[in-house]
Structure formats: structure tokens, C-alpha cells
């Protein structure tokens, strides 16, 4: 436990309220007692005067009952001591003195409830002070904790306060807003860094691709020319060479698509048509991998606003990934449906999912876990969808993965424009 360096708020509040309570209690109790005491003394004097004048008219043996009424405020003093005199008609003198202690005793007894209740009131006040201080310091304590958590790199939001002063509530809200902004800022910075990295990569890739593409094209032509008049054995070698060149060409084209996607030609696109096309294009690889491909298009799904060519590419990439995610066979489901932000196209597979630690990187170019992969498929998807003002999201679990692309629907004006 760290020793508090100075007095805590709680101690201060408690001390203040306690001082007030002590002061008030002793003031009222003191006043009540003093006033009561003075009044009782005065009453006793009046009683004494009345008794004295009454006694002056009585014989000594008749005064006894009368004099007893003087108790307990007056005490008879023993002969020879000084005191106030009462004379009876026949000249007998008795002396009395005022018994202040007895008066005070009677007074305290009379006021005992007030005194005890005062004590109880004081205790209640102290306990209230403790809780007041508690309710004030608790939010501050939580705030301090929040700051400490943030410092050690854990994002926290403070729980809403109930029944606290609104200033403290505002403080907590401000903290939460600050955390939100910081978080957004951090996300933004991450995104910016990624974009920068991609741009640099893209320009290098474009340059390399451009340089490679021309030699590749001429190699292809030469190969075709060579094929005529060659022995069957050599023809086989040539065929292999040819397919390798095609593969190289495809990679380079993908790289180019990624690096220079070209300006999209926007127009209304029928989502059903994209799915059909994708199905046709992937039919043979599906058959080879023993995969059943299903297509679900929502009834009268409105058209999208986008570049049909690029969107086909998106669906194709996602579907190919889904196919390669299930080497043992399975199902791939393509869906098109309405979404609150437009139209959604999704590709679902029954593979083993994407490990959480890779999830952040799958959209990065050249990130791949497959030996024959290029790592460009998803980055192209990301770029095209971004160019359309849409979003891609992944939902993955060990039971399967769904990629969902959400794109804007064709609006009424765009329809008219056509």
C-alpha cells in the first residue's frame, strides 16, 4: 500500500463535515444547557422568594411542608454556615443555599434524550460524510485506473456512472471520447501506413510487370512458331514450357491489375449475372476438387452500381480461395442479397477457417500461406471493392469462412441517367 502523500479528498471532506458537526452539536447542546440552567436558577430564586414571604406569616412548626418544596434546588445549610435566611412568624431562622449541582443534574436528566440524539446525529453526520467522500472519490479512482490501463497499452472504456455529480460524469465521458478518438486515430494511422506501403509496392510491381510482359509475349509467339515440325517428344516439352509461360503471364497480369487497376466503368450490374459467370468460370476447378457450388440470389435483388468486369474478378478471386480452402472437397455457397448499406455478395466455404493471428494480414499483397499462391487475390479484392466505395468483411471459424462484399445499390437517379 502506497502511503498517501497528502490528505485525501475523503479525509478533507470528512474533517470539514466533522468539524461542522462537532461545532454545531456542541453549540446547540451548550446553548440549550446554559439557557436551561440559567432559567432553572431563576425559577429557583423566584420559588425561594415566594416561599420566604409565605413562611413569614406561619409558625415554625407549620413551615416544614412549605420548606420541603425548595428541594432539590435549595439545600439547607448546617447552623453556623452562611446562606439565605427564611424567618418564620415566630422568629425561627433557617438558612438555605442554592444547590447548583442538583439543578444541573436535574437539567441533564431532563435533557438526556436531546443529548443522546445529538450524539447519534453526530455519528450519522460522520457516516454520511464518509459516503459523500466515497461517492466523489470513486469516479476519480476509476479514472486514474483507466489512465493507468491506457498507459500500459490496454484500451479501456469506463463504465457509465450512476448517481454521481454531473461534473464527474462529464469527466468520464470525456475520457471515453478521448479513448474513442485515439483508437480511430490509431486505426487511421495503420491504414495510412498500409496504403503507403501498397503504393510503393504497386509502382515497383507495375514497372517490373511491364518489363516482363513484353519478353513474355514474344516468348509465347516463338513457342507457337517452334511447335510446327518437331518430334512428338519435344512437342511435349514445348507444351509444358507453354503452360509455364501462360502461368507467368497470368501472374504478371494479376500484378498489373493490382498495381494499375484501371479506371472502372460504372454502370448498373445484375448481381445474379456475376454469380452465374463465376460459377461457369470455376466449374472445372470445382469438379476437380470435388466441390459442390451453390448459388442463392434473393428474389428481385436490385442491381448494383459498379464495373461488371472488376466485380467479376472479385467474386472469382474469392471463389477460387474458397475452393482451395477445401482440398478434401465440400461446398461453396455464393449469395447475393439486400443489405442495409446496399447489396451484399458473399462466398461461404466449409474449410478450416483462418487463424486469428493471420486475419490482419490476408489482405496484404504477397501474403499467402499456399505454396502455389501469389498472395494477390485478396489484395485485388480489397482494392476493387474500395474503389467502388464498398466494404469487405471476413467471418471465420474452424467450421468455415464467409467473405462478404457490400456494394452500393443503383440509385433511382443513376437508373434515370442510363
Amino acid at each position, binding site marked *: *500500500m*502506497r502511503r*498517501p502523500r497528502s490528505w*485525501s479528498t*475523503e*479525509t478533507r471532506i*470528512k474533517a470539514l463535515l*466533522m468539524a461542522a458537526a*462537532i461545532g454545531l452539536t456542541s453549540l446547540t447542546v451548550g446553548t440549550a444547557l446554559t439557557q436551561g440552567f440559567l432559567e432553572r436558577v431563576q425559577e429557583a430564586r423566584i420559588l425561594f422568594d415566594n416561599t420566604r414571604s409565605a413562611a413569614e406569616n406561619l409558625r415554625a412548626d407549620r413551615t416544614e411542608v412549605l420548606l420541603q418544596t425548595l428541594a432539590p434546588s435549595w439545600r439547607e445549610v448546617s447552623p453556623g454556615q452562611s446562606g439565605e435566611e427564611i424567618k418564620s412568624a415566630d422568629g425561627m431562622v433557617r438558612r438555605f443555599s442554592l444547590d447548583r*449541582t442538583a439543578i*444541573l*443534574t436535574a437539567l*441533564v*436528566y431532563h435533557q*438526556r*434524550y436531546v*443529548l*443522546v*440524539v445529538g*450524539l*447519534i446525529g*453526530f*455519528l*450519522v453526520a*460522520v*457516516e454520511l460524510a*464518509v459516503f459523500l467522500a*466515497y461517492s466523489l*472519490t*470513486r469516479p476519480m*479512482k*476509476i479514472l486514474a*485506473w483507466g489512465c493507468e490501463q491506457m498507459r500500459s497499452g490496454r484500451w479501456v472504456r*469506463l*463504465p457509465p456512472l450512476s448517481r454521481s455529480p454531473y461534473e464527474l460524469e462529464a469527466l468520464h465521458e470525456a475520457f471515453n471520447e478521448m479513448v474513442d478518438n485515439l483508437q480511430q486515430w490509431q486505426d487511421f494511422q495503420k491504414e495510412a501506413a498500409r496504403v503507403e506501403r501498397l503504393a510503393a509496392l504497386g509502382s515497383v510491381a507495375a514497372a517490373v510487370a511491364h518489363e516482363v510482359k513484353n519478353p513474355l509475349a514474344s516468348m509465347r509467339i516463338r513457342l507457337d512458331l517452334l511447335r510446327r515440325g518437331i518430334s512428338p517428344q519435344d512437342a511435349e516439352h514445348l507444351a509444358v514450357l507453354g503452360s509455364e509461360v501462360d502461368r507467368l503471364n497470368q501472374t504478371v497480369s494479376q500484378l498489373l491489375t493490382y498495381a494499375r487497376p484501371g479506371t472502372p466503368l460504372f454502370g448498373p450490374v445484375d448481381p445474379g449475372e456475376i454469380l452465374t459467370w463465376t460459377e461457369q468460370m470455376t466449374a472445372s476447378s470445382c469438379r476437380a476438387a470435388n466441390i459442390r457450388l451453390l448459388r442463392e440470389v434473393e428474389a428481385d435483388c436490385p442491381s448494383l452500381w459498379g464495373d461488371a468486369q472488376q466485380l467479376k474478378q472479385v467474386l472469382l478471386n474469392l471463389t477460387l480461395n474458397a475452393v482451395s480452402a477445401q482440398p478434401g472437397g465440400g461446398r461453396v455457397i455464393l449469395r447475393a442479397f439486400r443489405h442495409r448499406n446496399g447489396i451484399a455478395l458473399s462466398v461461404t466455404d466449409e474449410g478450416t477457417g483462418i487463424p486469428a493471428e493471420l486475419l490482419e494480414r490476408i489482405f496484404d499483397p504477397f501474403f499467402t500461406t499456399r505454396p502455389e499462391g501469389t498472395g494477390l487475390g485478396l489484395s485485388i479484392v480489397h482494392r476493387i471493392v474500395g474503389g467502388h466505395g464498398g466494404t469487405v468483411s471476413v467471418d471465420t471459424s474452424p467450421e468455415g469462412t464467409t467473405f462478404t462484399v457490400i456494394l452500393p445499390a443503383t440509385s433511382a437517379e443513376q437508373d434515370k441517367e442510363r
Partner: protein
Amino acid sequence: MPVLLLQLCAFGAYTLALVFLAGQAFSWKEDRRLFYVGGNRLRPGPMVGTFVATWMSAASILGYTMWLYTDGYVAFTGSVNGWLIGLVLMPFLVRKLRVGRALSLPQWLGDTFEDPRLRVLSALSLLGAYTFYIVIQFRAFGTIVGALLDIKILLASSLVYLFVLYTTFGGLPSVAKSDVLNLAIITGGVALAALTLLNRAGSFSAVHEALRQTTPAMLHPWNQEWSPLVTLLMMLSWGLGVAANPQYAIRLLSARTARDAYTTLALSALIIGGIYVGLTIIGLASFVLLPGVSAASDELAFTDLVQSVLPPLPALGLFLAVLASAVSTANSQLLLAACSLCYDLSPREGRRRADLVAEDRFLFKNRLAIALIATVALFLSQLRLPGILLIGRYSWTVVAICFFLPLYVIRRPRRKELFFPLAAALLLHLFLTVVLGILPELALLPALALEGLLYFSPWRSLR
């Protein structure tokens, strides 16, 4: 100065001392470990304070003194002796309790036998037992101060109620702090009263001499009505009850080191012994000076007796000692009762590691529970139910049934095997006390025997 004013001033002074010395009630960095067991960092000083002050309850100061006043040394044989046996057993607990990181005795029990049912059962009996214990403290003090100041008992009880609340809200650290003050008042008050009485009666041997001449029966350690066997059984049962009482065990858990725990036990035994000597002097000497005081209840008789045999100042000291002992016993019991309710009986608590916000909420809930239990006890203490005292005695024996065997007898706990014997023992105890009307203290022994028999019996594997 009028005696009444003196008394009121003394209560006022006690209030101020408590408020100032208990200090900051809620510490800035508090969590449940700090709240329940002082973060396992209590030092011998506060430990001795809180151990002894908790030990001396209003009921024990008053009950022992008055029993001694009416029956003589039998009171020592029957009660104090037993309590001291309990104290002697306690060092054996220290190592056993401190191996786990439990925050409460029910948790310790549940963890040791890997049986959550045990935790719930023992927490329930603790909650009940301590609530009634607190009722007794409130009532004893309320009656005394009510008679002293000639005010309504409710008002007097509210005063202790507030003292107890104030010290318990801060958890064990604040209970321990205030208990140091309480212990000082208890020892001071008892010593002053005992010395004054010794002075008036001449000396302790003079007291004995006077007793030998007037009522030699009072010097006899065995009662005439009860056979020695019953007295002995009673004593044994008190002893077991004290030894197994979680309010002491939890303090052994809170000590910083095992060594500190042993030191505390040794020092506490000395001080407790001293206080009992003081009370013995008070009981016997006041009998010699003024025999034959009796009243409707022990509390009233005590008030009368003390006011007649002692001058105002020492009498006030003794009354303050009763107040301090009531507060110090009630606050630690209240804390344990709240712990049972909020921690042991709330299944979701303690599973996850709570962050500060959740911890804060949890402690707030504890404070609410403290206020709730104390209020219920205050309410019960005002009902003139005759059976309440008996329920109090009944419930501490139940606690002893829950804890004695696992704390002292069982060396190698076997998983989940205690629940059935424990439940059977509780049922037997219920049967003996309710159906056959045997005193709860006496019924405790056969119940414990059954529990042990069932747990250790060779045919248990048949179940």
C-alpha cells in the same frame, strides 16, 4: 459534575476517539483481499488488538462476571476454562490455514475438500450465527446503557449500531485499527474496576477468606446442581466452539507471516488471561461487598451491581469496556457475515479476476450488505423474543460442527467426502436440540462424534 453528564461525556469522547482513530475508512487502493483479510499484511500490534478485543464480547464480560457473582468458581470451570482450551488449540491452525490463498473460512473449506456444497452450507450457518451474535451484542449494550441513562433501549442500541457500522465499512483494516482503541478501553476499564474493588475489599485473599466464611460453595469448582461430568462436557463444548470459530481463524489468515500469527496468539493469551483475572476479581469482590443483587436480566443486575459497588469513575470505565467489547466483537462478526453473503454465497464471485471497476462494485455491495445485516440485527434486538439468546447459542454450535473437524482433526482431506457426514451431524444436532430438548452445547458433542465416525469409518466406501 453530575454522573449522568459524566457518562454522556464519556460516550461522546469514545465517539470522537473512534471517528478520529479509525481514520480514513476506505483506502484508495482497496480490493477484496484488503477488505476481508487486510491484504494478509496485518502486523502483530493491530493483530493482538483485534484478536483480544474480538475475543472479549459484551456477553462474555457480562455473562462471566455475573455467573461468577452468583455461582462462584463454577463459572470459571464451565466457561473461561473451555475458552482457554480453544485458545490453546489455535496454534495448530496457523500452518494449515495459510497454505491456500482463501479469503474466508467457507472458501477454505470448499477449496480443501473441493466441494462447493460445503462452502455454501458453512457460509449459510456463519451468516445466521453471526447475525444472532450481533443481536446479542446490541441487546446487551442497549439494555445496560438504557438502564444507565434511563432512555429507550432502541436509542441506546442505535448508538452501538452506528459505532459498529462506522468501523465495519472500512473492512478489516479499519476494524483492526478501531480494535486497538477498544482493547485499550477494555483492559483499562477492567483493570481500574478490579483495582478499585480490591482496594475496597482489602486484598484478593481477604475476598477468599470472606467467601470461605460466608458461602464456601462459591469456591468450589464444581456445581452442586450439575454433575462434574456435565460441567466438563460444557467446558469441552465451549472450547471446541471457540477453537473452530472463524472470527479467530480469519485473523490468523490475515497475519503477515506465520511467525506473526504465533506471536499474536502468545501475546493475546497473556492479555486475555489478565482480563479474565480482572473479571474474576470484580465478580467475587463485588459479591463479598454486596451480595444478593438480582434483577430481571443479567444486564440489569450487572448495571445495578456495578453502580452500587463502584464509585462513578471506575464504574464508567467498566461500562465503557462493555461498550468497547460489544463494538469490537460485533464489527468483526458483521464483516464475516457480509463476506459470507457477498462472497461465499454469490457463486459468480471469485471465478474471474475482477478489474478495478468490478472490484469497486463488489466492495460497495459488501457495504450495503453490512448495513443490511446490521439493521436486521438491530431490528431483531428490539423484538422481545425470548428464544433469541437460545438461537444465538444454537447457531454457534452449528458453526463449530461445520469447522471443527476439518480445522483440527482431518489431516488428509478427501475430495467431496465431508459433505455427507457434515449434513448428518447437523441433522442429528437439530434432532437432539429441537425434539429432545437437549442444550445445544451438549448436543454438539454427539454431533461431532457422528461426523467423525462417518468420515473416518472404514465402510464409507460402500456409499
